[in-house]
């Protein structure tokens, strides 16, 4: 739309407007070009640096990228099913690669849970426990951080900074520390994910609380209710749907997070995945990826459906990773 038609018969004021418009457009173009140049420079610098400091160089490795994909294919497609459901393999040579039935978890004499389903359930339970713990602590902390409920500035400041610290503290360090103190397993993963969840949920919760309608609270205050009663009867019923919705969203994130923590020693499916990739057990790897993919899709769908029922259709996707 830059093609403006010039009329030679512009009045004094019209010329001023046009001059001003030209100035503005020129400045904007300058900013745009400057921004693009800056981005291009930053990107090329970043890529050069990433490529230089990587173990394999991008263009050297690119032709072999699909070799690796080829290596990941099992001998026959049914191997994936056998690995997934712990069925005996016809290629069984006693090695770790084909020992699918060894991982069975027998619930009764004949009925067993396949190994990876068990590990997946473990990971989901880690996520669920962490979300519940995070919900509990976040619920308590958020009212202390909300400016409409807590008048003491220092308390608000302290609680908010505390939650920020919990949120920003790298999960990996908490997990690593507790892995060193406790044994390798699920408990360090729960602690690490919970701590992060407290901070993340706490922040979202107090923003919800700050947007709550204060009329109900005023009514209770007029009737002489104390702080706890006001929070419990005036604020909580309003914010609960949003809280639950955020907690569900967090649960989705925590399933992914506990998988990742699992890969660094926190147990569950993440550990199984890392081991099978590093040992090049193709069928096992693909089975785990398939299971993980289906689980994540299922959890996302379930949580989206529940959230839809709780708060109606609202786009909460934006909160991921917070």
């Amino acid at each position, binding site marked *: 739309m830059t093609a403006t038609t010039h009329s030679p018969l512009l009045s004094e004021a019209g010329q001023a407007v046009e001059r001003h418009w030209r100035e503005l457009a020129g400045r904007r173009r300058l900013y745009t070009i400057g921004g693009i140049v800056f981005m291009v420079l930053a990107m090329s610098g970043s890529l050069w640096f990433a490529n230089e400091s990587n173990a*394999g160089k991008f263009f050297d490795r690119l032709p072999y990228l699909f070799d690796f994909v080829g290596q990941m294919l099992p001998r026959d497609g049914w191997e994936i099913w056998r690995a997934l459901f712990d069925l005996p393999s016809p290629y069984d040579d006693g090695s770790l690669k084909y020992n699918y039935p060894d991982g069975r978890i027998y619930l009764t004499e004949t009925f067993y849970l396949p190994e990876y389903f068990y590990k997946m359930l473990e990971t989901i339970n880690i996520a669920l*426990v962490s979300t519940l713990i995070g919900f509990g602590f976040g619920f308590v902390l958020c009212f202390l951080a909300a400016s409409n409920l807590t008048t003491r500035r220092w308390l608000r400041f302290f609680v908010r900074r505390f939650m920020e610290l919990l949120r920003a503290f790298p999960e990996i360090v908490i997990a690593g520390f507790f892995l*060193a103190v406790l044994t390798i397993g699920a408990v360090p993963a729960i602690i690490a994910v919970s701590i992060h969840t407290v901070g993340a949920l706490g922040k979202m919760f107090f923003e919800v609380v700050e947007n709550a309608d204060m009329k109900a609270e005023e009514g209770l205050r007029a009737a002489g209710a104390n702080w706890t009663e006001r929070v419990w009867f005036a604020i909580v019923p309003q914010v609960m749907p949003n809280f639950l919705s955020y907690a569900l969203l967090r649960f989705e994130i925590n399933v992914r997070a506990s998988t990742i923590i699992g890969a660094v020693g926190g147990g569950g499916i993440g550990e199984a995945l890392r081991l099978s990739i590093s040992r090049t057990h193709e069928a096992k790897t693909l089975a785990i990826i398939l299971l993980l993919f289906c689980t994540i899709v299922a959890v996302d769908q379930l949580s989206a459906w529940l959230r839809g029922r709780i708060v109606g259709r609202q786009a909460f996707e934006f909160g991921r990773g917070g």
Partner: protein
Amino acid sequence: MTELEANAIVARHTDVFQRPLLERFRAALIIAAIALYMIFAWWLFAVGQVISNGNWDIAGSYLADWVSYEVRPDIEYDGDALDVSFPRFSPLGDDPKPDWVVTETATVERRSAGTTEATSSGSGATSGAGFLGSLDTKPAAKDDGGFLGAMPSASTPPETPTANTTPAEPVVTREEAIVSADVSFGGDTHIRVQPGFVTVTHKGETLELDIEERLAVNARGPLPDWASQRAPGAKVIVRFGFAGRAEIEDDEVKIRRRFLGWENFFFDTRSPYWGMPVSEVLGTIFFGERIEEGRSNLAIAWDNIVNNADWQHGDVWLKLLQTIVMAFAGTVFASLLAFPLAFAAARNIMPNRFINHLLKRSFDFLRSVDMLIWALFFTRAFGPGPLAGISAIFFTDTGTFGKLYSEALENIDDKQREGVRSVGAAPSSVQRYGVVPQVLPVFLSQSLYFWESNTRSATIIGAVGAGGIGLKLWEAMRTNQDWENVAYMVILILLVVFIFDNISNTLRQRLIGRQGAEG
């Protein structure tokens, strides 16, 4: 309000005052269910057992390592003499003589046949506390511990070595050796080591231990509560809280003394600046003589800081930059790719249902195959390093951005598009002037938000091999030695996340106003 009126109200609103049982007890039921589930989880993960088996002693010392460091001299028994040694990479440098370890030397005879039995030049050197007065003693360290004043430390140091002057039949050598060491732990806490005898003083109590060399450690009298011994004759461990601890074994005394602070943070022990106070370092850098020919003192100082062996500043900064680059490049690429794809995936822009659906499902696929899987996959493909991290973030976020962008596009106001179309604009111009101005701020704001959150994710996926500071952190934690380095890296990460958080928030506020910036 009379009772009658109240009853009338209750009668009129029965649904409020007499709710179904399930609804009335719903909250209690939910809480009970959660409590039951938590008990189940407690059992499933054997939380109680794991916590009680946890090595909480170690946890304390690991936590203390975050802000302090240990110096670990070992005092070995060597017949009538002692051998004080520091580990090779001691934070005090090579051959340290710290003022809290005060040694006394005396001339000791020893038979070189390898037997450890030796006769001391002094009388009753093995008998313990009483021998001091009869020996030539000399404190090897500065006389600042108050206890030294009581000792006869004035006599002339004996000449070394004197072995050749007194040849005996079973070659007896005479040499100067340490016969007593006194380690101060600050305050009134001391460990005094002599051949065959160790005295520990702490909190006004004194523990005396007889050492039968390479056989047993026996306490005289009961052990105080700060000392512990697993079995009679086994090693005795004494703990002084933060100040440190010591293990008194039958062949050596292991001292672990703790000091607050990060040792050698700027200059390691090989640096010429090591041990200098700040003013002296600055003085040397700006006014001092050149330490090395052809290089300025400033260059040497910088080089020494960057290549500090304990803290590896250069490497840590490089890895941190890798993490930042991973998040930045991954997010930018994902935004660039997701931008055109989102237009094709949006139902109101691309009328082809098949393409809409195909693209949306592929976004879901990219998103649902977790960042971890992508990271492991690309680590195998490209080798460990930031390329794998960039690719992992790029793949996951293309899915996320594609979904978010196409949803934003489907929610646009159609009037602008209609207006642009009504003046006869080409389809590309309709998009450019009717759609993009509406969605671009939202797009940018979402990308910025994810840029910041990806900085955190990049740390984590780094630990599985995708490079960056995550891997470095993980390596530092694996050794269980370098918790102070972990603390240093955590502080750097927190700083970076804090700065990026602020940049991203500020930019988002400018783009879409205060309201939308709260993601």
